[in-house]
């Protein structure tokens, strides 16, 4: 297998995630797109680890990213719930309290 296969797959996933973050206005769907981005990074890490023969550090860092992603989605969904409770909607267009 070529390294470039994995790098291209992960860049495609990353860009699909970026599109989701930019184009979606439902907060939960934006969080899902962020998960896509984090997974793309993980594929990169593991592929480079296998390429360099440094598999162990790559796997450890991938595990750390998985843990951080879990923490991120927990806090993110708590914030979404609070937004929903305060404004009865998770449409990101309506979260505009900071706009004058």
């Amino acid at each position, binding site marked *: 297998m*070529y390294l470039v296969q994995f790098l291209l797959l992960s860049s495609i996933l990353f860009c699909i995630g970026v599109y989701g973050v930019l184009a979606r206005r439902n907060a939960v769907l934006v969080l899902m797109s962020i*998960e896509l981005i984090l997974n793309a990074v993980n594929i990169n890490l593991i592929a480079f680890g296998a390429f360099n023969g440094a598999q162990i550090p790559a796997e450890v860092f991938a595990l750390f990213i*998985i843990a951080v992603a879990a923490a991120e989605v927990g806090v993110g969904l708590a914030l979404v719930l609070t937004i929903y409770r305060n404004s009865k909607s998770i449409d990101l267009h309506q979260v505009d309290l900071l706009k004058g």
Partner: protein
Amino acid sequence: MITTVASMVSAPVLGAVVAQNVFFYLIAAVMVIAALRVVTTSNIVHAALYLVVVLAGVAAQFLLLGAEFVGVTQVLVYIGAVIVLFLFGIMLTRAKVGNEDGLDHDNVIPAILTAVLLVLVMGYAVVDFAGDEEIDVLGNSPTTVEQVSDSIFSTYIVAFEAISVLLLAALIGAIVVARKE
């Protein structure tokens, strides 16, 4: 590291390499299609379920690259926990079951342009950088859980402690933020 397929001697090895490539492209195609559905579907529950397909595909790619423990952790943490969390979030914010309007911005052209431009630039950079570098998965020594845990609890112990505190802070923070007054 940079050996060509032709220079590998035995036929079984060549067969394994071909099988690896076939499975890579199969899984990659499924992943890309499912990821596109995640960001385009108008049913928010379907988006979560398509995300399961993508995450399972990522776990399969980890297995292909010989990172068994990370693959299993991916299934446990993502498909087991994160997706359930997402479904909870969907249910608690009372999303409509079924198709829903207004999940996208009114004008998605700039987002499409950004994503396409980004994939072109990144794709060019990646091909330019690693055009013909090979990953010799079969030549790598298999990694065991023992090695991974050894590394976490010796070399990366500081990072491990930091991530423990981060998880605790996230747990308490999520409860504090989401709790009713």
